């Protein structure tokens, strides 16, 4: 049974696995130290307590001992050296891993309070739900991510795939994952970034290669304009200032790309499921789902709201 979908002790990718290995070594070491020292402490407290029968004389005064001091200096030094070397090895293996040719490249940009994903070689732009192929250890297809920020600091943390790395404006970072099992992996922003830091959720879909390739082909298609009533409302309101729908005049960059909105399971960076009711509510009154988000209430009439929602539901 799974304790938690975000358990750091259930690694499913090499960087998380390396950290897991190190963490077991560190935890066993510190637990051993804890037991040894706390047994001594407990023994001292119990054994050397003042007794009722005591004669109120002072115990023998001992001022110190250089041999003993040396012993409890040298032993911790040796433990520290061991822990340091183990850490240094994992730092090098994770941070300095070479990028293979087969790697998928993704540019992750953190925004207040959502994630933008660009696949530069595949010409895909999407938001909030990252799709990557599963990586077979025999033929690794890791995903290498460049981490950018459009505004404040954020941090990309999907515990089962890798440790966190921050997204800092004008300070590009990178990290990589090579998930070796398929499925949905959850996480969330781990660096306080403003009001809705809590609902800047991460969803990583690890797919079998064929399924991933199909997803890529779908994302690469540009939907045809249906010139519907909803599209006219969308194009004539402020929606277009922030959102892009490829193949239409809507080219805003402040909000998530909506070209394939309906291919996503959630809206508002994972804050709500992508259902008709939630989508309509999100357009009408974003604060009901995510108070303080940058999505403004659009102030549309009920009729226009239905039309825009219907239009968005055609963006597959």
């Amino acid at each position, binding site marked *: 049974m799974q304790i938690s979908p975000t358990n750091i002790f259930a690694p499913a990718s090499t960087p998380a696995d390396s950290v897991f290995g*190190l963490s077991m070594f560190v935890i066993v070491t510190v637990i051993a130290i804890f037991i040894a*020292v*706390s047994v001594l402490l407990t023994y001292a407290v119990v054994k*050397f307590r003042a007794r009722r029968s005591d004669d109120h004389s002072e115990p023998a005064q001992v001022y*110190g001992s250089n041999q003993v*001091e040396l012993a409890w200096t040298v032993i911790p030094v040796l433990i520290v050296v061991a822990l340091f070397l183990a850490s240094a090895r994992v730092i090098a293996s994770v941070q300095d891993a070479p990028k293979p040719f087969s790697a998928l490249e993704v540019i992750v940009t953190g925004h207040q309070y959502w994630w933008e994903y660009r696949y530069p070689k595949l010409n895909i732009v999407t938001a909030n739900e990252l799709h990557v192929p599963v990586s077979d250890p025999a033929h690794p297809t890791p995903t290498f991510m460049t981490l950018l920020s459009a*505004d404040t600091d954020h941090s990309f943390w999907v515990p089962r795939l890798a*440790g966190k790395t921050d997204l*800092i404006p004008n300070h590009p970072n990178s990290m990589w994952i090579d998930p070796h099992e398929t499925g949905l992996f959850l996480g969330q922003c781990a660096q306080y970034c403003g*009001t809705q830091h809590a609902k800047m959720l991460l969803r990583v879909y690890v797919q079998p290669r064929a399924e991933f390739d199909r997803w890529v082909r779908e994302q690469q298609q540009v939907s045809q304009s249906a010139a519907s009533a909803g599209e006219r409302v969308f194009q004539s309101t402020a929606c277009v200032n922030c959102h892009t729908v490829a193949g239409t005049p809507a080219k805003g960059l402040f909000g998530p790309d909506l070209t394939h909105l309906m291919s996503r399971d959630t809206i508002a960076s994972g804050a709500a499921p992508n259902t008709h009711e939630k989508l309509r509510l999100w357009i009408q009154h974003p604060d009901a789902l995510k108070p303080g988000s940058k999505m403004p209430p659009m102030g549309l009439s009920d009729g226009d709201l239905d039309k825009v929602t219907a239009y968005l539901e055609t963006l597959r």
Partner: protein
Amino acid sequence: MSTNTIQLTEFPVSRPLTLRLHGWVTTVDHKRLGLLYVLFALVFLTAGGIEATVMRLQLIRPHNDLVSPQAFNRMFTMHGTTMIFFVAMPLVFGFANYLVPLMIGARDMAFPRLNAFSFWMTALGGLLLYFSFLGGDGLYGGGGAPDVGWFAYAPLTSRTFSVGHSTDFWTLSLLVSGIGSVGTAINIITTILCMRCPGMTLGKMPLLAWLNLTMGGLVVLAVSPLTAAQLMLLVDRYLGGHFFDAQAGGSAVVWMHFFWVFGHPEVYVLAIPAFAIASEIIPVFSRKAIFGYPVMVLATVAIGFVSMSVWAHHMFTIGMTSGANTFFVLSTMAIAVPTGIKIFNWLATMWGGKIRFAAPMMFCIAFLFQFLVAGLTGVTLAAAPFDWQLGNSYYLVAHFHYVIVGAILFAIFGGFYYWFPKVAGKMYNEGLAKLHFWLFFLGFHLTFDFMHIPGLLGMPRRIYTYEPGRGWDVWNVIVTIGVFFQAAGVLILAANLLLSYFRGRTAGNDPWDAWTLEWSTSSPPPEYNFAVVPTVRSRRPLWDLKHPEDPDWRYE
């Protein structure tokens, strides 16, 4: 010795309240200023505690909507800023102010008026911070209390992201109180170096003086960069500067360096005076001299130096090079060695003693166990790759609360009971003190032991709510329940101090049969501390007096 001391208790003619208050406001007496620091800290402890309680109630279940996200973000910013700068620092300074002159046989601090100035700067800082609840809206109608987090990472503090004046109140508050902190630190250093009584060489100072000397040095070195950073932030916000403005060549990372080069030594600024308290209480209640005094001094000074070179372990996730990460793993883990030495020396001090379980010692024994755990979870966080998972999670939050509450606050509570008879001249109520201990002990462990777990399960800090189904729910309930036991414990402490002050039995000069100079004068001490400036020959002058047949100076 303790039977034939002269009672110096005065019976002043009752003066009107206004005159008495005027006396407190204009005082330059180190003891009164020390008490002002402590009382100020207790008021802010209440505020910070209420903020913590609001957060814990909000987090008791997923998707709770007790407070808005904006309000929650203000709560954690105010809680962190308050507890560090207006509770922990004033407590530490209060103890140092009150005790250092008494323990080194001086009649006051080196610069009494600087002392008063420093306290009132800190007080002004605290008032500025809380005035933000009223004044933070500014002309823009945005803001209120600051909501940028207690380490206020750029660029969230820029005028783009923080409209109104909330961040300005935060900045000014720390700028002003920082000046007070540096003033007090210089005062403590000068006092210890220049005001010791005849015979008290550096090697014969009580450990408390050595540790506060180290603390003073750290404050001067650590708070100055913070003050500089606050000035830079003000320049950015109002004079068109770009220190932290990544859009115009500035760097958000520069702020992180400035903040943590303050922030990590700050941990030791708070911890070392707590060690100082433990280093006085443990020997007296074990009836033995401190074990390995020179090694304790060396270890403390070593911690002071090494703590200046570990700051970037707060930044393992910001994308430093592998070389930099590796260096900071080594420097951080190195601190474990002198810290371990201290724990072993306290242990060796108890070894072979006759331990008396009065409240001060109970808090110190709990301090030893909890500091051990805090140090060991610190080692797990020092392993940089492990920190990539643990950093900014609730595991980290649990770790540093273990340090600040489990170690530092427990030692300070011990100090409250240990020196209360000296300060008030009355004995506290031992039964209430033990009740405080057990309630706080239980609450502390309910809250902070179980807080590690949601962190290991992926719960980040500073989120006003969380999704169900992450396996975090039950742990958050337990963590919240612990808060009420801690609050009850603190209320009992307050009741005990008040009741004992008015109704307690007279304590006498030396209720603990202790060995340092503060116990040689009356309780409470007269304004001039000592009628005759004492002369000492060893680290335990009162031991020498009580045991003329076997004095310490033969062995030191």
